[in-house]
């Protein structure tokens, strides 16, 4: 939860750390991200889409990552880039993971109503650009770009 | 109001023909948390939900509900359709959101003086 840093060329970067298993805090980082984006003057529709992407990404880190991970938000004049990174466990079959309703959520998560199997799909749906890179045993990176101007 | 009439008035799509179309629907129940529905829904109520998996049929049966309406254009799981048919549970669908279905059903029942 840091102050936006100016990384030059009009890019502002904010990094949020998300702990594995911390469902109580679920959504805390993404609601902060949304507030930060609004404060930076991002149009409401784009901020909302980014917030939804951030929420799904955050919940994925909480529910699935071995050791937590980070959400990096980079804001440029044209777009918002969200990067979700963790060190494990990695996704065995990304295509399968992107199938609606497919979920590997543990019981403690589904008991609380999470793990409906739509997270990655919702991230892609709300992004203008979407990329996922995962290696079992190593980790996962999800990159989403939301253009500021489009609603 | 009879189930049959409500199905007609709300323009519900029949997913599984079951239950008793002549039975009087005593009320409505909205909810997607199955354990809660089991605990609080009353026999004879028509259940409005977006849950689409097989357990919906079991809950409807155990709770003695008039039937289930899948809202928001949600399409039932094949397993739900099979189980509902096998067990004689009435399942319907509608493109309308739950809020609207609840509103319209509420109005129909209120007009009847329930």
């Amino acid at each position, binding site marked *: 939860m840091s102050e936006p840093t100016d990384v030059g060329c009009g890019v502002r970067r904010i990094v949020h750390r998300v702990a594995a298993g911390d469902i109580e805090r679920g959504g805390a980082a993404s609601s902060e991200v949304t507030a930060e984006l609004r404060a930076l003057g991002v149009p409401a529709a784009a901020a909302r889409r980014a917030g939804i992407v951030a929420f799904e990404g955050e919940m994925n880190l909480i529910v699935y990552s071995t050791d937590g991970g980070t959400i990096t938000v980079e804001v440029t004049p044209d777009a918002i880039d969200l990067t979700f990174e963790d060190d494990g466990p990695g996704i065995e079959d990304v295509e399968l993971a992107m199938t609606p309703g497919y979920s590997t959520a543990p019981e403690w998560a589904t008991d609380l109503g999470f793990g409906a199997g739509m997270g990655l799909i919702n991230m892609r749906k709300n992004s203008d650009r979407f990329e996922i890179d995962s290696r079992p045993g190593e980790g996962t990176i999800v990159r989403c770009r939301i253009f500021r101007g489009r609603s | 109001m009879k189930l049959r009439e409500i199905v007609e008035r709300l323009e519900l799509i029949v997913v599984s023909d079951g239950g008793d179309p002549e039975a009087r629907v005593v009320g409505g*129940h909205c909810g*997607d948390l199955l354990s809660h529905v089991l605990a609080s829904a009353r026999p004879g109520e028509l259940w409005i939900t977006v849950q689409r998996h097989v357990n919906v049929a079991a809950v409807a049966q155990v709770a003695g509900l008039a039937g289930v309406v899948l809202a928001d254009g949600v399409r039932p799981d094949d397993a739900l359709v099979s189980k509902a048919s096998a067990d004689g549970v009435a399942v319907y669908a509608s493109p309308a959101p*739950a809020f609207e279905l609840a509103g319209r059903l509420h109005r129909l029942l209120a007009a009847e003086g329930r």
Partner: protein
Amino acid sequence: MKLTELAELIDGAILVGQDRADLEIDRAYAADLLSDVLALTDESTTLVTGLINPQVMRVADILNVVAVVFVRGKHPSDAMLDHARRAGIPVVMTSKTMFETCGRMYENGVRPCRNRPMSGAESVGSSTG
């Protein structure tokens, strides 16, 4: 209808937003599943829910929801109410059921808000995404 009228209609209490008496409540969406709430369309909507986990308020904030109505006598935590205050989202609580609450709201002119059809699931009836 106005926020205060809504509270009265459903025998509810305004937990946050007593100073927003004149807030217009014109559309509503009922949901018990977080995944459902996340798919709300971009309209000014009041969320009606029985979910009281902390994520609900955070999601309501992200989605710019107009107000939140908790049904079934579910009392949100102090932390949730604090978040609602900070985010400027009025909160009403009622002990009425979801069905009764939606029923009364609808019959008094609150219109439905359309959800986005769930990705991947074929929709029944017509839908324009």
